[in-house]
């Protein structure tokens, strides 16, 4: 990944490169390394891209799977907030600051947050006690976390199509009169909303830089960053539940014997073929993502339920697993967003052809029944996503869960059976082996993409 930096950005780049805080965080893997390219290849690249001679080229590590805030569970948004504050706090003592504070400056390497906007670091006016990115931090980190905790508004509902997050006025309108007067809404939504009209009346004078004694300005900024961190930690200490978080316990789809046979089938394949990269579609609790990570795969795990994905993230972060869990409904994946839909590519643009293997365990019936996606279309998508392997679980219409979700409309899937499934599969894959779970209407298929 190569970045071109033009002359207006060079002072910020120099500040970034000189910063001890940046170096410390980069050593821990939390800031993207940046290597200046000055060789002949760099000069040729500049010519090829018609870049001016005074542009500087930087080479960055290419993170395996870029993701965006609308695909994160709230736990990942909170982790990104903490990293932003770590940087802002460390830079203070170096006379530097962050000129912006948005989760779009962060990507994830597995479960580790990585700051990637190298031009965000800038020299700070020593006497200015105001952090100009404060409001953006509140809008894009704090208020979405508050909205999730109090109103169950997940980040995908906030950030898809709303890069700037939630305004204080948005959260104020969502809240009851009593909640508006309680922390944290009082300080981050209610008072800024009340002051908004007064501030408009002050005009441009409000935005003039302030001049205080440098140590006082630093004290004020450090206090402010500390209280933001305290707010993130108090809001982020949630353990939400959803319809799906306890589902496996309350509505078990497998007996112990069936679960064991399924695990053995998956483990055997992982041990034999050791895929480097794996996409787990409909990961639920992430049990099989964990198996794949234990076998050495770099895993991207998807589920539509933010609470489930958040639990998997906490587990991956605590156990240092190579799993990137994302809130994505594969039937309605994240669209391309930003200016002309070109700033953030869609999930499918990023995912197709990027994985050695795809898991679709206990998800096919949800796609076919609830999402009404024809079987051939599901298999076509799977063939586009994987470079090689597909491990898919066929669930017959006689399965109790299938019958439950079809809700009396069994005739819609009356012609679906195992032989029809095998026939459909062989358009795009060849069957390596299969296993029908004992006393079950569920069959696992290990498939390889046809050439």
């Amino acid at each position, binding site marked *: 990944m*190569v970045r071109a930096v033009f002359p207006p950005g060079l002072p910020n780049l120099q500040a970034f490169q000189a910063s001890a805080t940046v170096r410390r965080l980069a050593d821990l893997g939390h800031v993207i390394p940046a290597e200046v390219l000055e060789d002949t290849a760099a000069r040729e690249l500049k010519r090829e891209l018609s870049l001016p001679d005074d542009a500087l080229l930087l080479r960055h590590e290419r993170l395996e799977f870029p993701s965006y805030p609308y695909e994160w569970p709230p736990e990942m948004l909170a982790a990104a907030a903490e990293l932003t504050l770590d940087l802002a706090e460390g830079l203070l003592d170096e006379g530097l600051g962050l000129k912006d504070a948005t989760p779009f400056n962060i990507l994830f390497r597995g479960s580790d947050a990585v700051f990637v906007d190298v031009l965000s670091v800038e020299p700070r006016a020593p006497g200015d006690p105001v952090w100009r990115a404060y*409001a*953006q931090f509140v809008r894009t980190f704090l208020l979405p976390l508050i909205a999730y905790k109090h109103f169950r508004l997940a980040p995908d509902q906030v950030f898809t199509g709303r890069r700037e997050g939630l305004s204080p006025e948005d959260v104020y309108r969502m809240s009851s009169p009593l909640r508006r007067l309680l922390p944290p809404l009082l300080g981050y939504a209610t008072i800024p909303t009340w002051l908004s009209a007064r501030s408009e009346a002050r005009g441009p004078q409000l935005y003039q830089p302030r001049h205080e004694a440098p140590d006082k300005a630093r004290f004020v900024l450090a206090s402010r960053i500390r209280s933001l961190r305290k707010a993130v930690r108090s809001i982020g200490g949630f353990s939400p539940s959803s319809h799906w978080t306890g589902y496996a316990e309350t509505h078990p789809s497998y007996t112990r014997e069936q679960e064991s046979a399924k695990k053995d089938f998956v483990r055997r394949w992982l041990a034999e073929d050791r895929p480097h990269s794996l996409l787990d579609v409909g990961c639920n609790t992430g049990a099989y993502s964990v198996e794949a990570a234990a076998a050495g795969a770099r895993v991207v795990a998807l589920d539509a339920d933010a609470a489930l994905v958040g639990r998997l993230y906490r587990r991956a972060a605590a156990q240092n697993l190579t799993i990137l869990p994302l809130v994505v409904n594969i039937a309605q994946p994240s669209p391309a967003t930003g200016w002309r839909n070109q700033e953030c590519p869609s999930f499918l643009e990023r995912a197709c052809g990027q994985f050695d293997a795809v898991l679709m365990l206990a998800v096919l019936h949800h796609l076919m029944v609830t999402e009404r996606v024809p079987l051939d279309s599901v298999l076509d998508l799977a063939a586009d996503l994987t470079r090689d392997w597909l491990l898919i679980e066929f669930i017959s219409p006689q399965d109790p869960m299938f019958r439950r979700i079809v809700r009396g409309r069994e005739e819609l899937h009356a012609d679906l059976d195992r032989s029809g499934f095998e026939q459909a599969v062989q358009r795009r894959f060849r069957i390596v082996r299969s296993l029908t779970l004992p006393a079950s209407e569920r069959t696992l298929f290990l498939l390889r993409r046809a050439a």
Partner: protein
Amino acid sequence: MTAFGVPNPGLLALFYADPGSGALLWQLIGSFFIGLLFYFRRFAAWISPRGGHKRSQDALSNEKSR
């Protein structure tokens, strides 16, 4: 390898982040009070060593009078 970076006369515009209006005013109000705390702590730190010196002086004079 992916390369990005587009020369554009409006490049500096990319450096903008909206500081808010009500939020900025609230930040300024908060800065005033935090600034008061700064002076209070400075004052407290200034009197504290003098207080300690006075106490040690009292202890010395008590010792001498025994």
